[in-house]
């Protein structure tokens, strides 16, 4: 039996801040079974756990820190053009702090 369940997928979706339909959930489950099979294949490769994981593309990479100079910043009006809900040149969002908090 698969170790992946509908509830498990749902909990991941909740953490990721979206809902899945039953159909979407089922597709994820199918894909998980496939991935599990493939990852088993990887886990059984010789010397795999002795290999250093590659997380950066170039291993000879170097970069010089830039000078700490003042740069021109974008105009606030330009930045706010993509926002529909604005108050006094600020983005309006629902209250985050609970009203009952003292």
């Amino acid at each position, binding site marked *: 039996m698969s170790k992946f369940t509908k509830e498990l997928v749902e909990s991941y979706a909740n953490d990721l*801040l979206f*809902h899945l339909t039953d159909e979407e959930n089922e*597709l994820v489950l199918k894909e998980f079974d496939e991935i599990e099979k493939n990852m088993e294949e990887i886990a059984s490769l010789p*010397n795999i756990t002795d290999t250093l994981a*590659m997380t950066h593309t170039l291993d000879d990479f170097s970069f010089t820190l830039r000078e700490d100079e003042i740069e021109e910043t974008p105009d606030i009006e330009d930045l706010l053009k993509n926002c529909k809900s604005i108050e006094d040149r600020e983005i309006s969002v629902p209250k985050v702090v609970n009203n009952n908090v003292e």
Partner: protein
Amino acid sequence: MLNKNILELHNLLINKETTSKSLIEESLKKSHELQAKCNAFVTIIDDAKESDITKDLISGIPYGIKDNYSTKGILSTASSNTLKDYVPFFDATAIANLKKHGAVAVNKTVLDEFGMGGTGTTGHTGSVLNPWDTKRMTAGSSAGSAAAVAYGVYPFALGSDTGDSIRKPAAYCGIVGYKPTYGMISRYGLFPFASSLDHCGVLTRCVEDAAIATDAMKGIDPKDMTTWDSSDINLYNSLNKNVQGKKLFYLKEVVDLENYPHATEELKQHLENFHQTIEKLKKIGIEVKSETIDKRLFQTIGSAYTCISCAEATSNMSNLNGIIFGPAADGETVIEKMTNYRTEGFSPLIKRRFVIGSYVLKKENQERYYLNAARVRRQIVDIMKKFFETYDGLILPVSAGPAPFLDGSRKETITDDIRILENHLIIGNFGGFPSITIPNGFIDNLPVGINITGNCYKDADILNIAYNLESILPYKNQIAGGVDHE
């Protein structure tokens, strides 16, 4: 006029035999024509203005931009409902560089949502059809760019490539697709998919144009810490006829027909065509040898890629919540607003990838999934680097044949046999290697491609080999003249 390459257009402009305005008008007209036929664009910039003609080869010349590049004042959607109204306030560095050189953007092209797909069918504005045959896919994710360049809308368009997203659509559309060494072109302003695999690049109809466009885009950028100084490299000026002594290799396990007991007629022709191309290369003085690999390891390329790319994507796209980016959704609380925005905005395919990415990154799963995938990446890159001590590049056919049908009715079955053949282009992303696809034949009146991948920073060598191969094949500058089923 726009079926010509950049150099030909530049000469016409310099000699005043045409104008930038006239080229842009023609390009916009062709954009609308192709939009009706193949649905290649998210935005056509009808008010695009001509630019001054200078000694810059691309000055005054129209081009296209994949819609995952930020363009100041121009809608940039990444072909996703989550950004369907997003208008950036700045240009991506690659775009700013092209502007400085006088190139004129005329449209934003459709991609698979956020570049996370390989079919050209998952953008929020619908599927892109292949201009060679509108029942076929272009592949993706740089689908619209590939279709537009193949159709002759302009000589070049920008793409991005995380697994094969420039190089596979180039093959299916009969054009050139080039992804330079990681960090040669700044990714600042490119919407990230998987940052350690994402590359900017270009789609053209000849190798010269790929070199010219990349020269104009590249350069170190303080806004992208992974860029490096390439000021001593001029790709266009490095093209020459000297390939004597160059050495390439192919992988026996990928190109020998005996590896495919269930090979379709299409695959047989594709491999036969590959070997014919190799013979032609040998005739111009390039040594080509066969090498062998551990098939078991290379068969895991696709799985390792899925694991790494989903993990990085999950993290990169957590800022898409309708508050930091995208239009705010309804909801009583911030969490509700973000959840509604992400539920409605992301397609099922993207959500699936996020769940997988989140799962493989969990502390208790990281070792078995994400880290093991990153170890496969290391092993494969190390093997390639060892090969590159002897050879200038790896040469392989792209995919298992020409573009599949959009309705999924491709004749052959995708089996384990062709896993490496379908996924080997990812090697270029794993290692950040320069990699170029050029057209090398036709099967059933549809184009197929061949790919050359070399060691990091050896872009000039790789382009020059491709340039010389292109010169002995009859497909340079070809325009899609295919079947329209409408």
